[in-house]
């Protein structure tokens, strides 16, 4: 009887971190919000298009108007922005799925480490997309007098506003990705201290 109790006591002290840890709801909900933000940024920017009839020249007394279009794929920076945000949303979706479906998709305990490393890299990638698109949007809004580049936002207001909204959504997504990265790295630190 006493040895059984002793064994039982031993077992509870030597327990490894419990095989079914509580689900981290905060981390999961932050990832869901980040996924929504990056995917909406992708969609809003990809469907961003505005056509307007603009006066190009005047022949005699009749102004010549041609319909001009502003689309996101006129600028390589916005194409890059759409691609990077699409990658970030797909990554978020995959990690949410892996988190929900549980630890059966683990390979020798590499899951948390891989997720932390990939988080860092996808966050750096999203930062590139944001930086390029922000300065391109600023160029479109203010122009550049030194290079004689005219601003386009006074003519294509809806295009500029939608682009700005996509940028804001992408910034929210990347800040949440940063928070999620820090949380997954500290989760690893806590795990390694055991």
């Amino acid at each position, binding site marked *: 009887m006493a040895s059984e109790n002793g064994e039982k006591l031993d077992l509870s002290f030597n327990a490894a971190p419990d095989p079914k840890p509580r689900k981290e709801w905060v981390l999961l909900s932050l990832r869901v919000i980040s996924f929504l933000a990056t995917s909406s940024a992708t969609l809003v920017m990809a469907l961003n298009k505005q056509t307007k009839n603009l006066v190009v020249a005047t022949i005699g007394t009749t102004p010549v108007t041609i319909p001009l279009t502003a689309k996101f794929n006129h600028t390589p920076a916005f194409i890059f922005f759409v691609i990077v945000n699409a990658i970030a949303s797909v990554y978020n979706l995959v990690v949410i799925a892996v988190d929900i479906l549980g630890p059966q998709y683990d390979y020798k305990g590499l899951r948390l480490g891989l997720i932390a490393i990939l988080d860092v890299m996808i966050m750096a990638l999203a930062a590139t997309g944001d930086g390029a698109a922000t300065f*391109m949007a600023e160029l479109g809004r203010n122009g550049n007098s030194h290079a004689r580049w005219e601003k386009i936002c006074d003519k294509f207001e809806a295009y500029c506003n939608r682009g700005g909204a996509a940028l804001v959504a992408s910034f929210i997504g990347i800040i949440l990705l940063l928070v999620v990265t820090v949380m997954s790295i500290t989760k690893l630190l806590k795990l390694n201290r055991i």
Partner: protein
Amino acid sequence: MAKIRRVCHLLLRFLAFAATLSAVVVMATSHERASFFTVSVEAKYTNAPAFKYFVIVYSVVTVYGFLVLFLPAQSLLWRLVVALDLVFTMLLVSSFSAAVAIAQVGKKGNSYAAWLPICDSVPKYCDRVTGALIAGFVAVIIYIILLLHSVHTVIDPLLLRKN
């Protein structure tokens, strides 16, 4: 073995410091005078906000890289270095991509927005900016490697250490 590792690590950090420093110096000293139809214009890095952001971020990272070179090994501050590496790599990467985006418009122009390329009028300025961007690219790659190395050393995410 540990000594070789430390020397390699310090060498990498010194290379990153040198790359960021050269990017800042080359970008900040790039200016050229050109004349546009009897008007004399000067092309400087302060003309574009993206290049100003580039210079500011790279100078901050240069100072940080210089200070980290003097951190003694086995200090507890290496945890802080991981966090700061993360933040500074993000800043580096976003400023580099912003500068590349604006430089691409300057070199190729944008026919849809009627923005003419400016590199034909100020070729030396364009070349210097290209050089600064190349140094910046090297710095970005090295900092990403350093970030992954810091995360691996301090936190060991793939659980490769056996204690």
